[in-house]
């Protein structure tokens, strides 16, 4: 069991790759064999993630060096810098790992029933495993170039999955926009990695953090990295691609595309907090992140209010919620150098921002599933043509209410817990930002009330008299997410202390990340 825990970072990324390449061979034996194989392998991977999470929270940072004579041997005898590719799993990495695993498990189970009748299913599951491997590698890596490679793997697999239904023209267009944006952003990341390597001759994140002196070229590299990750994240000036792809992706894939953006957000935090960390003037950078977060919140919700396509509206809300995360962590970044402010409200701001990532994954996932359920039954996404569905689709309406209340931040759902953390801490930093955040919440509630009114209430339309509820498996998928939302809302303290607080500590504490690799180097 101990050796399983030691090797688990590598196994968690290698097993999905094995599955991705074996599924085209195995699916020759029939669809049932392939589905069972995917579920078994993914169950094994979920178990490995769970035991790794328990170990990281109790013991500390896990370092895994590929190809050395022992897994933790980052600096073999005589070396002062790490030369091998490394995975370094700390609290923040395993937090992202847990989110990615939960979302992929839900997407896998949902897709098993959703894809009946489509061709090319073997490649769908293969690409889903590749996307999972790419995102987990991005979360676990301790090496800058490895970050680039896994970022590209996740982008290519995500674009292939989003454009899966090639018989629909707009699906291919959405996927095309996604791959263009991802390719440009990844090339900018590679440019910045080149600049950093030319200066310090190391590629490992811990070693770069150790040797970092903030020269002009490093400023350029930070600008390029920040710009590239913000492009991938759909922060506001560069958000044009996001609504298109959320609208056209198949039902299980939309939460995974959102998780891919969250992984890019993790990479942004890893670069600013750990790679640059104490060497930069965090106040300026923090304010840039805060301004972009506020812009995203505001523009996202304003564009969402007048949409008529239900999934496109939810996509704009996803952009707006990402603004909350950027705001929370931006406030924490701005006060990073000030220990008093950090202890009193900075840490809570970062916790709120990070907690919001997992909350957003849960309720946005559920809202997208309800929109897909409606589309599954009546074949249209246009709000002007819907009406009176609440009479027939009672379960879907119920889950929609839960999701809408959670996203607006109404107690007792989980949105309230993370938004309260953000409001309180941002209020002490700058009251205006908190007021803007609360205003955006109100407008979110208003737009979801509009959708509920036009889609679910009202007289039953004659065209939809025969509409039944969606199949049991979809209801089970939505019910699992709803149960998590209610649980996180009623016991937020439990969640924050168990998984969010270690992540916050891991981000703030740059020294422990560096020491785990560089050891006792003076």
């Amino acid at each position: 069991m101990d050796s399983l825990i030691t090797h688990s970072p590598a196994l968690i990324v290698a097993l999905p790759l094995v599955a991705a390449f074996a599924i085209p061979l195995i699916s020759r034996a029939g669809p049932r064999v392939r589905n069972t194989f995917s579920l078994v392998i993914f169950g094994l991977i979920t178990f490995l993630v769970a035991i790794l999470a328990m170990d990281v929270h109790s013991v500390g940072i896990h370092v895994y060096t590929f190809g050395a004579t022992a897994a933790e041997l980052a600096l073999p005898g005589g070396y002062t810098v790490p030369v091998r590719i490394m995975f370094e799993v700390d609290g923040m990495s395993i937090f992202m790992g847990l989110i990615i695993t939960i979302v992929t498990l839900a997407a896998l189970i949902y897709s098993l029933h959703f894809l009946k009748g489509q061709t090319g299913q073997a490649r769908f599951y293969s690409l889903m495993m590749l996307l999972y491997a790419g995102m987990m590698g991005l979360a676990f890596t301790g090496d800058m170039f490895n970050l680039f490679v896994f970022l590209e793997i996740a982008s290519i697999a995500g674009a292939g999955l989003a454009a899966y239904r090639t018989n629909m023209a707009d699906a291919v267009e959405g996927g095309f926009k996604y791959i263009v944006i991802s390719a440009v952003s990844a090339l900018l990341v590679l440019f910045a990695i080149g600049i950093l390597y030319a200066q310090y001759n190391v590629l490992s994140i811990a070693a770069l953090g150790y040797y970092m002196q903030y020269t002009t070229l490093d400023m350029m590299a930070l600008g390029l990295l920040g710009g590239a990750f913000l492009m991938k994240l759909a922060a506001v000036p560069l958000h044009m691609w996001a609504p298109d792809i959320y609208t056209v992706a198949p039902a299980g894939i939309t939460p995974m595309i959102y998780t891919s953006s969250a992984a890019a957000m993790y990479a942004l935090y890893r670069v600013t907090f750990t790679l640059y960390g104490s060497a930069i003037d965090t106040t300026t950078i923090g304010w840039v992140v805060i301004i972009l977060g506020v812009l995203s919140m505001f523009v996202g919700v304003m564009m969402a209010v007048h949409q008529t396509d239900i999934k496109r509206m939810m996509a704009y809300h996803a952009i707006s919620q990402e603004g909350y995360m950027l705001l929370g962590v931006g406030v924490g970044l701005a006060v990073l150098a000030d220990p008093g402010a950090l202890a009193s409200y900075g840490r809570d701001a970062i916790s709120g921002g990070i907690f919001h990532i997992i909350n957003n994954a849960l309720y946005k996932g559920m809202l997208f599933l309800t929109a897909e359920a409606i589309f599954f039954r009546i074949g249209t996404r246009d709000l002007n043509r819907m009406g009176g569905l609440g009479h027939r689709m009672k379960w879907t309406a119920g889950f929609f209410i839960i999701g809408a209340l959670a996203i607006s931040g109404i107690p007792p759902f989980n949105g309230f817990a993370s938004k309260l953390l953000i409001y309180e801490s941002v209020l002490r930093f700058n009251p205006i930002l908190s007021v803007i955040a609360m205003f955006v919440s109100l407008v979110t509630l208003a737009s979801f009330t509009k959708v509920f009114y036009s889609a679910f209430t009202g007289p039953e339309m004659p065209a939809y008299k025969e509409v039944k509820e969606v199949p049991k498996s979809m209801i089970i998928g939505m019910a699992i997410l709803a149960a998590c939302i209610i649980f996180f809302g009623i016991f937020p303290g439990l969640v924050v202390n168990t998984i969010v607080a270690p992540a916050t500590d891991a981000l703030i504490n740059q020294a422990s990340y560096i020491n785990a690799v560089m050891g006792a180097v003076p």
Partner: protein
Amino acid sequence: MMEHIPLNFPFLAAALLAGVAFYIIIFKRNLIKLIMGIALLASAVNLFLVALGYRAGGNAPIYTDVPEGLMVLPVPQALTLTSIVINVAVLALMLTMVVHIYRHTGDIDAKESRRLKG
């Protein structure tokens, strides 16, 4: 003759290529030209990576029958190889998508073939 080329020349060339590539990506509407712009940006970044490994008077970093002396840095060459492989995959994917878009809409102009708006 080699001494008269300034040492910054490859970096200037990479910056020029990147500038042209960004101009194409932002301002051109034909989808095939957009893909060419991305390929050009990839070439600029690859050139930058290989050029930063150069050491004056160095040989290729291969031990088989190499003359004595300095060697250029091998790590950026490995990074460039990986980047080339990834870009092959990305370009193949983008070209396939453009063929699908052409089949559906009959047009490869970005403005005319746009269906998702708002």
